[in-house]
């Protein structure tokens, strides 16, 4: 008797529970182990922070975020992407730091009908002829940031510039992006070795050439090495240093005051004046000790974009979310983000300077806006 009663009560309770709401499933791919793990770590921190801010939900629905470590290997990334899409059946695959990994997973993910959102990588093939409607970028296209620097230096009337970047695809993209808007004299275009640690020889040649300005792209450890050695060789008295992706939230803790005064262009800066950014930077600093890098900001924006899209679409359906995002007007740490026809952002490009803040910590400060509502150069080649 007791058994029947308890069963009946249990059954009625089960019947009383409403149908389970949709769950938004996100597969977040970065490099967590190995050399570049610091970047992946920052992005993971930002994603977790975003989930805290949304109360663990995306678009008001239950959310599940699966972190995967691509180990910076394309075959691992491919295997993980397949798993996320076919087995975990995620609604969104997001993240991806490196251009080559993005090239490896772009087709399989987008073709499967799953939404692919980039938190960083933006190689030109997927912005142009190789584009796909299931891809949305929450970062930028690789050429945009150096284009900003080129325009700034052109408008500022800088007569001669010395160019330097590592000898790989991204390096070449950066310098060609720069030259798209800069029409002055290019004194030299020097390609250094990938992973180079000592730039003394290049600096000696630079000093002999006495260019008015020097524009460099040296990401990661190379940037730390270059700026340190630039400083140690007293090069500021010879030429003014302009950079992209060299002085940022990842390299500044190691550079400290040796980077002060270095100018860069970027689509974001920790001091951008909007409510979302202020909250993000303050909470990130409080929780993880140190300013977030642009990688972290973009990762945060990605999750907030998914939150926005899922909420507006009212479901976790990939196509529905994609349609929302394609329209633009997404709330991000850069303000309301507009979308281009190839689903890459149309955004401002700011001029920033490395400074020491009130607590003596190195960070960047916006000192001007170079481009307003800038779209990338490849959108016209993209036809869905």
């Amino acid at each position, binding site marked *: 008797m007791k058994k029947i009663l308890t069963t009946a009560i249990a059954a009625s309770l089960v019947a009383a529970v409403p149908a389970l709401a949709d769950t938004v499933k996100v597969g977040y791919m970065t490099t967590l182990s190995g050399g570049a793990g610091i970047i992946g770590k920052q992005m993971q921190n930002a994603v977790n922070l975003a989930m805290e801010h949304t109360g663990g939900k995306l678009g008001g629905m239950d959310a599940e975020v699966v972190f995967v470590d691509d180990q910076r290997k394309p075959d691992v990334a491919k295997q993980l992407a397949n798993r996320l899409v076919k087995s975990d059946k995620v609604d969104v695959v997001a993240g991806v730091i490196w*251009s*080559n990994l993005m090239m*490896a997973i772009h*087709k399989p993910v987008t073709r499967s009908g799953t939404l692919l959102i980039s938190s960083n990588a933006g190689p030109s093939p997927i912005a142009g002829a190789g584009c796909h409607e299931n891809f949305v970028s929450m970062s930028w296209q690789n050429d945009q940031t150096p284009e900003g620097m080129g325009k700034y230096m052109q408008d500022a009337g800088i007569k001669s510039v010395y160019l330097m970047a590592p000898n790989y695809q991204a390096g070449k993209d950066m310098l060609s992006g720069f030259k798209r808007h800069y029409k002055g004299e290019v004194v030299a275009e020097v390609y250094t070795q990938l992973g180079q640690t000592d730039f003394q020889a290049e600096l000696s040649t630079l000093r002999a050439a006495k260019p008015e300005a020097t524009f460099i792209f040296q990401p990661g450890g190379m940037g730390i090495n270059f700026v340190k050695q630039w400083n140690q060789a007293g090069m500021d008295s010879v030429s003014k240093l302009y950079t992209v992706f060299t002085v940022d939230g990842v390299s500044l803790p190691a550079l400290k005051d040796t980077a002060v005064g270095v100018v860069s262009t970027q689509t974001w800066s920790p001091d951008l004046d909007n409510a979302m950014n202020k909250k993000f930077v303050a909470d990130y600093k409080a929780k993880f000790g140190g300013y977030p890098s642009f990688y972290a900001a973009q990762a945060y924006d990605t999750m907030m974009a998914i939150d926005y899209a899922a909420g507006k679409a009212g479901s976790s359906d990939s196509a529905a979310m994609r349609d929302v995002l394609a329209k633009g007007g997404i709330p991000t740490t850069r303000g309301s983000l507009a979308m281009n026809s190839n689903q890459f952002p149309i955004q401002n490009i700011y001029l920033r300077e490395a400074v020491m803040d009130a607590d003596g910590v190195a960070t960047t400060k916006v000192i001007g806006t170079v481009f307003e509502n800038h779209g990338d150069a490849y959108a016209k080649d993209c036809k869905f």
Partner: protein
Amino acid sequence: MGALKILLDGANRNRTLFVLLAGFALFPIYTGIADLPFWNDLAMRIMILGMAAMGLNLVLGYGGMVSFGHAAFVGVGAYCVGISQYYGLYNGWIHIIMALGACGALGLAIGYLSLRTSGIYFIMITLAFAQMLFFLFVSLEQFGGDDGMSIDRAEFIIIDLWEPLRLYYLIWAALTLSSILLMFIVRSRFGVVLQAIKGNESRVEAMGLAPLPFKITGYVISAMICGLAGALFASWQEYVSPDIMHWTRSGELMIIIILGGLGTLSGPLLGAVVFLLLEEILPELMHVVAPNYAENWMIIFGPILIAVVLFARGGLMGLVQRVTGGRT
């Protein structure tokens, strides 16, 4: 002995290898039933890596030639597929013939130039050649440079690769054929001479045989096997980039062979299985045991490799032999 007898005898002597091959053949049945189809991807990666390792093992394990550049052949095989597709050629059989041809020719050239040296000098020369090939492909902007090229699965007339398991069994067939080929080679007169050269080159010379043609031939065959692995890899990954031929991938191949057991037929495949499985399982384990240090899983991986060296002479196959009382 007839070929069939050799085959059966070889299977008997290299049970581990044939057990693994059988395992791989049956694996998709398990993943199908358990609804874990994504594990097939891991299995395909293991098979391809095992095939490349087998190729290298012919010269490294049996021939005593420590080539640090074999990942370059894998890369060239992959780019044969990539570049062909760039020019509109999608026939997988032609890709394979191209890969075998290109790697054979390249293996001949590099082998001829490098095999004049030996020991650590040979290692560095092969490394130098591999680096040059790597930088060459990085500089080819037309084919994506180091960002690589997104490609499609090759079309094998008769075999439709878009059916889920066709590629799997194609790779399996290539792996099995390579294994059988290597088994015949190792037991042939050629193979015996090659191993004798590894043991004592001057003695072989004293017997009136010129070592160099044997070494070069072995080198070419191993290059072609790696090229085949590379071509299939490109179809699986649907992407080619110079990453595949970075010197660290060559090092990885060597590590796998040593881990599995140098100079054994089963070693390379066993090494590939264990190595990639560890890469999959260790991070998961760390997530459970020490979640704060989950991404530092290599701090366990390193000592495992050291432990294998200290306690398992002859690699994992050495361990297998001791456990099964001398049989492999």
